[in-house]
């Protein structure tokens, strides 16, 4: 029987497959989609990535794309400077939720408000993974972390920030969307959103944002096999997937949640 390879071990823009991220980590799934999306939009030789600080930083050496390593929370400003000097490059950031929404909240909001033609990519697992599983600005109520052992409590810890909604409301934001890699369909959906975001940038329409929910079984105190279910149920019920802004129209997460709750809803 002759075989035709339909699935490559790794994307063309990836150098090597060996990494030490945890079993069951969702971040490498997002990495694959990101690198394929860059190639699919024809930007392999004109992409510059700005990488934040988190577990995913260890994936940076695997990316065969020109990159700049930034500090925790500070990728959007670095990407701004790079894009202003190289306006024809495809500029993206790769940041975790601790990086972008805790430490770097100001940076991403200002960058979006300015309408910088860059794409900020958020890997959201609701924890600071690299330090061992601590609460971030996106941790959901009730979620147990090492510094919210009884679960995030609104009265003591406050509420999570849905950064996509904040960014989508800014006039400088042309595209904002949220995906989740808890299953194969979700992984494929992430790539569609990344491509739309990149196309928005290439058409110089403004700032674009793609949030990708990923599994962190280590940070969540669950077994690896329970990761996808936890992601969909615990994070996905708050950070609901869908497109938040497209062609000038803002669809808040609350609407996506209501839509999902309807019978026959996605």
């Amino acid at each position, binding site marked *: 029987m002759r075989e035709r390879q339909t699935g490559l071990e790794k994307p063309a823009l990836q*150098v090597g497959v060996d990494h030490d991220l945890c079993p069951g980590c969702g971040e490498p799934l997002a990495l694959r989609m990101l690198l394929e999306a860059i190639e699919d939009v024809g930007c392999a030789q004109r992409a510059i990535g700005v990488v934040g600080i988190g577990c995913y930083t260890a994936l940076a050496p695997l990316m065969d794309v020109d990159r700049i390593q930034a500090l925790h929370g*500070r990728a959007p400003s670095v990407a701004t*400077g790079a894009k202003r000097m190289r306006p024809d490059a495809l500029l993206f950031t790769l940041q975790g939720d601790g990086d972008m929404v805790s430490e770097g909240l100001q940076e991403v909001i*200002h960058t979006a408000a300015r309408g910088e033609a860059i794409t900020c990519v958020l890997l959201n697992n609701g924890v600071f993974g690299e330090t061992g599983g601590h609460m971030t600005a996106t941790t959901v109520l009730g979620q147990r972390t090492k510094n919210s052992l009884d679960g995030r409590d609104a009265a003591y810890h406050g509420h999570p920030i849905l950064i996509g909604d904040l960014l989508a409301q800014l006039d400088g934001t042309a595209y904002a969307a949220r995906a989740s890699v808890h299953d194969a369909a979700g992984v494929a959906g992430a790539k569609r959103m990344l491509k739309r975001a990149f196309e928005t940038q290439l058409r110089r329409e403004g700032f674009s944002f793609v949030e990708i929910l990923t599994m962190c079984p280590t940070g969540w105190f669950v077994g690896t096999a329970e990761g996808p279910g936890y992601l969909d149920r615990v994070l996905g019920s708050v950070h609901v997937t869908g497109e938040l802004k497209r062609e000038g129209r803002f669809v808040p997460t609350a609407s996506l949640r209501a839509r999902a709750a309807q019978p026959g809803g996605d």
Partner: protein
Amino acid sequence: MTRRLMEGSEAIAEAALAAGCRFFAGYPMTPFTELLEHFAKRLPETGGVCVNAESELEAIGMAWGALATGARAATGSTGQGLALMQESLSEITRAELPLVVFHMARGQGDYYQATRGGGHGDYRHLVYAPIDVAEAVALTQLAFDRADRWRNPVSIYGDYLLAHVAESVSIERLDFGPLPAKDWAVDGSLGGSGRARIVNPLGMETGVKGIDPDAFWKRLQAKHDEMARREARFDAEATDGAELLVVAFGTLARFARYAVRELRREGARVGLFRPITLWPFPVEALRRAAAGARRVAVLEMNAGQMIDDVRLAVLGDAPVVPIGGISSDPAGFGIGPLLDAERVRERIEGALAVEAA
């Protein structure tokens, strides 16, 4: 460009443009604000970009990104704003990016900040302290060259007086010789080659798992040691046979120079040593200048910062005494009463009198 009257902020901005600076980002803060104003006006006229950053942290971040693409870029602030930038100032050094920093201080109290740095880890910046606007114009251009040559940040230590005094200057483009190509800079073009570039402060390389901070930091240390050996600059006058050696930097040194020359005309055996690089501090030159002096008097407008470096250079060969001190205006911008030729002369005379006694 013809000679014309320009305040320091404008002259420094023009010098940066003459050096090919294409990117600037900053946040308004006295006495740095006018520098930002000039860049905001002039950079777009020369094909560059000036971004009004929403915080000092974002300003240095933007400069970081611009530098990483190979452009000449700068940022700046006053001491308080630079305090916010310390993590980035430290890490940009490790990323070996040629940042030029305009440190427009509120007086001389930021000497420690400029030379020791408030960031983490081992790192060094070249720091130039101009005495006047003309020297600031030359040192600004030198800063961009040395930043590229060493792949290291370089600071210009200015102050309110330098920013706002208008002097007659002509901005001529200076040529310091050829520089290596910036093949480390990212433009996207090596994507998919297996050798894509990664500008980073950790020593990461494409396709290599893990980093080696020990080797990386030692290499940086060796570079900084080499910079220390080769980049010290100073100005000295009448140090041979001087009984009293006055040491001063920056705009205050201009008053010291005036007073020293006046006292010399009256027969006093007093000399002046002026470090032009605050880092590397010109240790050997100061030691030579102080040889034979009976006393070394350090004139600085702060609680005593440069005096540490003077003591380390003199190493007990002569007593080192402070004759400056804190001196501020009601707004705290560093235009203190001591910025006055008469008062400076009195302080030096005081040190001479002790000498004679």
